[in-house]
């Protein structure tokens, strides 16, 4: 009897350990890239505010309607502007944000090249 009980317990543990919550993977990916606009420094995924919870429901709804990740971002951008995205696209307001690191990298590279390689 004891053996049988142990067997049942082991069986249950092994059987249920592959049940984990990954059903909302796509939703989580999207909400991680959406800013919770009424919280400070939190994504919709991290936040439990009223606003974020409604956003999560709406993202689910849009996914069910068959919208792709990109279309959902465009949808929210139209409503709330670029600020809602953590990964804003390249446009006239954000070109400095995108180009500055590259410029600094090139400038730094040029300085290093000038002072080390050319000296030799």
């Amino acid at each position: 009897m004891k053996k049988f009980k142990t067997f049942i317990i082991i069986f249950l543990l092994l059987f249920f350990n592959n049940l984990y919550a990954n059903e909302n993977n796509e939703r989580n990916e999207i909400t991680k890239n959406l800013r919770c606009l009424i919280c400070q420094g939190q994504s919709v995924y991290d936040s439990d505010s009223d606003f974020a919870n409604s956003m999560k429901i709406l993202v689910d709804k849009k996914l069910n309607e068959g919208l792709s990740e990109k279309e959902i971002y465009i949808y929210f951008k139209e409503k709330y502007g670029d600020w809602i995205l953590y990964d804003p696209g390249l446009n006239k307001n954000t070109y400095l944000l995108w180009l500055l690191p590259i410029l600094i990298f090139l400038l730094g590279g040029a300085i290093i090249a000038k002072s080390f390689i050319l000296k030799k």
Partner: protein
Amino acid sequence: MKKKLIPYSIIFIFLIIFVVFYESLKDTNIYTPEVKINNDIPIFSAELLLLNENSTSTEIFKSDQFYLLNIWASWCAPCRDEHPILMSLSKNNKLTIIGMNYKDNNKNAKSFLDELGNPYEKIIVDKNGTNSIEWGAFGVPETFIIYNNKIIKKYIGPLNQEFFLEIQNLIK
């Protein structure tokens, strides 16, 4: 010449940093939402409070008429403050006031209206808050002015006397 260049450039860089930080001190670090106007109103279908029926955006909002959509809830204290302004706006027959009851329970919403008066022609029920997100709202209270199925003005937070006069001018 070369020896002087380094200290000068360091001073120059620090000056730039100082100016940037000094200027940013004046900025508030609380994000003020971008007010997106001239957007088309969303297409939706929702339950109506008090009437127990469903309605769609095209049935509620007709073109060539001014509408005011007010998002409110009985649990929201600033909504209580702005309610007298909505009551006086409802006397203006050029403006139709539509309410959106945000994450509220019907019983509380009804007693709120019984107590303070009902300025709304129709009230859309937004149980899970998704409808207000479709409108691009942040929370309660929030007010939109709609003309020809476009949002022409948006007020975040409670309405006050100043906004009241602004709305009166807008719909003249």
